């Protein structure tokens, strides 16, 4: 495999150098966009498609990269997980795209993994996720648990003095893994087991009466209580509504959410939610020139004065610029060379700092805690003093403590076990096996 790859590399390099001047100028760089435009996930993913299209348009106005134009290739995987794999194959094998920006849910990413590894593609994944993964072909521009969940819990513990914890989530892999990490972390910090309440609900759950009244009861035991919510998407609206109706205010029992952003809030009457928290790496309200400019461009692009921006959009902004920088650095769009070049690339983020691509294919991010305001925006109340590097393998899960990922040679492995000194199966192989 690796010899073949090298030969291929050599050949393509040769071909490139020969035809560089004649072909390169005309051939556009193809950017695949793999976001659901229909089905349940369309609510979150359509804006990401628009974001990448806007970024491509802007880059083309600047003259493209390496003198080549960029061209978007949009497909619709329709919120159907197996279809994601099919569409990814279509993008890589038929359309021959140079890079893909896409996916939202972890399931869809796991379904795409074997394909991008097999066809040696590049995928930029913009959403916060549960970690425990690092693929040679995937760049994780969203937050890993140590860039969102752990700092948020620290904030509640140290700044608000929370001693009792409700971990509430939707019943699927991201909340379950995150809550497992948080539970271990909290117990390491000396929180007793009876001070942690864990609750899972189905997707789209709308009847929160019992759970909210449980939380109320749990919170009246005399210790400061907070809810750490990994409740996904739609289910949040009735949850917050029930909190408001049962009279739980943010100063009684604050809720810190990991999946509620500006986009979700735009579908809620935020009056009763004021003061509840969210942890992200970007808020639309962040006061930096880069951010205000980005928002102005976004409003102009969408033609909607009320258009909001959110964290995954910033992740695509960072990922896109990193890709452009890496292509410039490598001088080619060849996948293997871009992969090598991108490690260490630093580009400005929207919060006034820089994001750097780490050797484990995760990036550095600041962690912000924001309070919901009555205009559907967050007001930052706390942030980490410096950026935090994403951790592919959590230190708080038994199996993953010894694992590291480093895609620089000579290690070049996403699942290196420091205890045994061996490199495990690739992320794509693991995902394929799990199916």
């Amino acid at each position, binding site marked *: 495999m690796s010899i073949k790859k090298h030969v291929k590399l050599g050949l393509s390099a040769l071909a490139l150098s020969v035809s560089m001047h004649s072909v390169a100028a005309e051939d556009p760089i193809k950017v695949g966009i793999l976001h659901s435009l229909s089905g349940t996930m369309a*609510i979150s993913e359509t804006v990401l498609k628009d974001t990448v299209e806007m970024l491509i348009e802007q880059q083309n106005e600047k003259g493209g990269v390496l003198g080549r134009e960029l061209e978007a290739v949009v497909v619709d995987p329709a919120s159907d997980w197996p279809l994601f794999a099919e569409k990814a194959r279509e993008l890589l094998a038929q359309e021959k795209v140079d890079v893909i920006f896409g996916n939202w849910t972890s399931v869809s990413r796991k379904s795409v993994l074997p394909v991008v590894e097999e066809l040696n593609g590049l995928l930029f994944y913009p959403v916060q996720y549960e970690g425990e993964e690092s693929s040679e072909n995937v760049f994780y521009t969203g937050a890993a648990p140590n860039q969102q969940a752990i700092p948020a819990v620290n904030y509640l513990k140290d700044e608000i003095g929370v001693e009792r914890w409700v971990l509430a989530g939707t019943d699927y892999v991201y909340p379950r893994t995150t809550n497992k990490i948080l539970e271990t972390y909290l117990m390491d910090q000396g929180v007793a087991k009876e001070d942690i309440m864990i*609750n899972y609900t189905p997707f789209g759950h709308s009847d929160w009466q019992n*759970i909210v009244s449980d939380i109320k009861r749990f919170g009246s035991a005399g210790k400061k209580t907070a809810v750490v919510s990994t409740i996904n998407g739609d289910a949040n609206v009735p949850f917050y509504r*029930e909190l408001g109706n049962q009279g739980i205010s943010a100063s009684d029992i604050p809720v810190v959410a990991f999946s509620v952003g500006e986009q*979700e809030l735009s579908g809620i*009457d935020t009056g009763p939610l004021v003061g509840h*928290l969210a942890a992200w790496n970007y808020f639309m309200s962040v006061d930096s020139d880069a951010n205000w400019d980005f928002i*102005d461009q976004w409003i102009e692009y969408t033609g909607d004065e009320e258009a909001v921006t959110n964290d995954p959009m910033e992740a695509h902004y960072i990922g896109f610029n990193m890709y452009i920088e890496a292509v410039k650095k490598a001088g080619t769009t060849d996948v293997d060379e871009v992969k090598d070049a991108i490690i260490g690339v630093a580009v400005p983020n929207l919060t006034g700092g820089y994001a750097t691509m780490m050797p484990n294919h995760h990036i550095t991010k600041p962690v912000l805690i924001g309070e919901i305001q009555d205009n559907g925006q967050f007001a930052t109340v706390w942030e980490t003093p410096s950026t935090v590097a994403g951790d592919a393998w959590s230190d708080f899960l038994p199996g993953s403590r010894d694992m590291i990922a480093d895609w620089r040679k000579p290690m070049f492995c996403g699942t290196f076990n420091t205890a045994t000194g061996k490199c495990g199966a690739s992320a794509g192989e693991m995902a394929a096996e799990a199916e």
Partner: protein
Amino acid sequence: MSILRSLTLLLIALASVLALPAHAQDDDPGKEMLANLAEAPASKVEEALNVIVNSGDPRARSWLEAYGNNRLSRVKDTGQVVVVLDNRGRDWEIADPLTGENLGEMSRRELDRVAINNAIRGQLEGILAMLDLNAADPEVREASARDMMGKVDATLVEPLEARLEQEENADVRNRIEAALAVYRVGEGDLEAVEVLAGSLHPGARAALNNAASGDNPQLAAAATKALTSIEQKLKMNRAAETLYFGLSMGSVLVLAAIGLAITFGVMGVINMAHGELIMLGAYTTWGMQQMLPGQPGLALLLSIPAGFLVAALAGIAIERSVIQYLKGRPLETLLATFGISLILQQLVRTVISPQNRTVVTPEWMSGSIMVNEALSLTLNRMYVIGFALVVFAGLMLIMRKTRLGLEVRAVTQNRAMARSMGIKATRVDILTFALGSGVAGLAGVALSQITNVGPNLGQNYIIDSFMVVVFGGVGSLWGTLVAGLSLGTINQLLEPWAGAVLAKIMVLVMIILFIQKRPKGLFPQKGRAAEN
């Protein structure tokens, strides 16, 4: 723009100089107090707040409220503290906190919010409640005394005691005493435990719990005793609460299913697009609120007939274009209507937006009625329960007392015979389907107050609706009512100890077992009609 702004600023300054005594503008103590608050680092905020509270300035309350609502901002260039009146969009409307003068719009880029966090907001609520204790209305005083529970700290004890001396209203006195007792229990006061003994307020329980696990043995014993008596009372309340939850979940199920009970139960049409008809009703509510901005209550009331009409018309369109050609072919009807449901969903996504829409809950529907400290019944749910019963009664009336009802029953029982008696079966089909669809639209109007209004709204209810209709007995409206309410209650009874996911599964298994025993559901149809 900036010239204009400075001009208005100048004018306002002039006007206020003219209006007020000459020293008011620059020497206004409020200016310095607000600047202090705006500049204070986190550790000094409390001090700055206290200065404002103790100043006795009549504007203090409005400043504190603005601060608590994240509405206090500083203009980056000049450092002037302003109140943000409207913080939507790119330009925000601001006002001078000192004079209350409107300063026009300013770009949000140029404003710097005066930061507040939850800890300070908690204190602020205490302070505001303290200010409210001086209100003339005893109800306001009682509510604010109630808010003080658990928020009393060392600085508030003295003013609160002074307030207690003056207070004449017995209810307010009790509240203040309880709030003080919560603080005193924390300080180890044995007598205060007595005060809290009967209280169901979570704050009281929290204080007692802390005392019970504290290191003062005498206090711990007294607190434990008080807690057991409270627990007893709580149990009763919890049972009542669960029943209410069950009824409210049940009424949602009834609403969602009752339209289906007509189209599926009475007509025998498996309409997979039923959920999307509900969705149309919910979107009608949203549309109404868009058309009548600022009057969410009126819009909601008007959506009841409008939602019915929109869904009924959509129902007629579906019936005329597809279902009438598939009579007697249930499998094909199922597939065709499933296709329609997907089309309707995507239509909403493309035409309106894939994002959820905000439907505002009117003032009179939000919040809850407090029976006692531990039992409060949420108002929106209460309205939905009432609405479900009204819709049910209305449908019963139509089916039993009107000519349409008679014809529907005749056509269902024996189509050929009814036709030979001169009933236009096709017309009855259309009207029945329109009625069932319209009721689905009504369900949508109600659901817009409980759940998300988005393209996926219908999907979440379609399975549950079929479950209720099958469980209740196909063709029986009473069955739907009883089945809906009992499934809701069973679900809520199971949820606390099984969890939401497992409770749902258990209910489903139960229904399957029940259907094995009684394939025709709770209220099977009797007589000749039941044979075919």
